[in-house]
């Protein structure tokens, strides 16, 4: 194990499509932000080469990931983003900072957490010794 698999084999492609789908969902739409697969596909197909079934699969997979919400309307499912771009970014930071602050190394491993004044002093002293 010398190389870290960064995005994994399926990473970039799926991530890129999910991003494109979210961009569509974040854009203006009449029905309170709810989109059918067909509507998402129509917007996406204009700018990229994505099959209808691919869009459907990607949307379906984004539900358990918590990225989009799903509701059943008449015959077809409808989707919308879990939050606005700002809300989701805030959510991401809250998770990142929450994990750092609690010093809970469960899900994320932080480089360094919160520091007390004594700890800052220790860092300053060590740097002074090293450079002095």
């Amino acid at each position, binding site marked *: 194990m010398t190389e870290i698999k960064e995005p994994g084999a399926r990473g970039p492609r799926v991530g890129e499509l999910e991003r494109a789908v979210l961009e569509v969902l974040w854009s203006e739409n009449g029905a309170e932000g709810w989109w059918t697969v067909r509507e998402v596909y129509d917007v996406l197909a204009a700018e990229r080469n994505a099959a209808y079934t691919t869009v459907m699969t990607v949307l379906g997979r984004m539900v358990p990931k918590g990225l989009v919400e799903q509701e059943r309307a008449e015959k077809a499912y409808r989707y919308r983003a879990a939050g606005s771009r700002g809300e989701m970014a805030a959510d991401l930071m809250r998770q990142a900072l929450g994990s750092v602050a609690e010093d809970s190394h469960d899900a*994320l491993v932080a480089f360094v957490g919160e520091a007390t004044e004594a*700890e800052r002093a220790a860092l300053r002293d*060590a740097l002074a010794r090293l450079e002095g």
Partner: protein
Amino acid sequence: MDPALVPLVLAALALLLAGPVPALLARATGLRRTPRAAMMLWQSVALAAVLAALGSGLSLVTVLVLAEEPGPSAWVLAAVSLGLTGLVGGRLLLSGHRVGVGVRSLRRRHRALVDVLAERREGVSVIGHEVPVAYCLPGLLGARVVLSEGAVARLSPAELEAVLTHERAHLRARHDLVLEAFGVLHRAFPRYVSSAAALREVTLLVEVLADAAAVRRTGPAPLLRALAALAGSRTPEAALGAGAGIVARVAAIEDPGAGWSGVARATFLYLASVAVLLLPTLLVVRPWVLGLA
């Protein structure tokens, strides 16, 4: 050894390895000079404690049931012993399941957010936020190193290299799995067992190891400066709770304990790690198992 003594010896060993031994190890701060060997010892002690506890219960059952003429009280005692052993094992399994499922679902959701919101820059996910954070998201296939714009802005190229080397060391060595195992132990037995001290110390040791990787790459100064730049002071109440982690890391960065004395101490710890698992197995468990056959 008299078979009747096996449960007693193993019970005494389990108590020793669950309470006083970890408490003493946590106080022996010199162990941080040989972090890899110290990690091995911590893991051996924890594993040996669990095995001794389970072995003690099971051997008591066999001693009672395989006696010449087990009376009713022997059967009752054997049943109680079996129940307690099952309780210990069950608690561990349940805690392992809860922690595993919880951690993985948290990571999956967080990774999904990172992947759609962060910008990929040379293998690093950069979040567009000014608050400085740097962390890694472990996983077999979907490991990520994540930085915020705020962190990138505060770091020089050498400091950035130190941070990335530190995080990649965590991912490469799967430090998250060790932390998870000690987390499981702590959640299963939060009291009466020195599991909090063990978790705290192992958490520190993985940081010391990742710091050492960064120092090998960039030297100590960029790492120390990166620590100073990113050490948070965001919430006063969180800062109050923070332990001696950074001070201990600084001490280890300044004095990595290399040289022959370091090698000698590490060798001693490795031998102790093997002995703590091997000796009880050979001297106590093997005769008991052979006696059953």
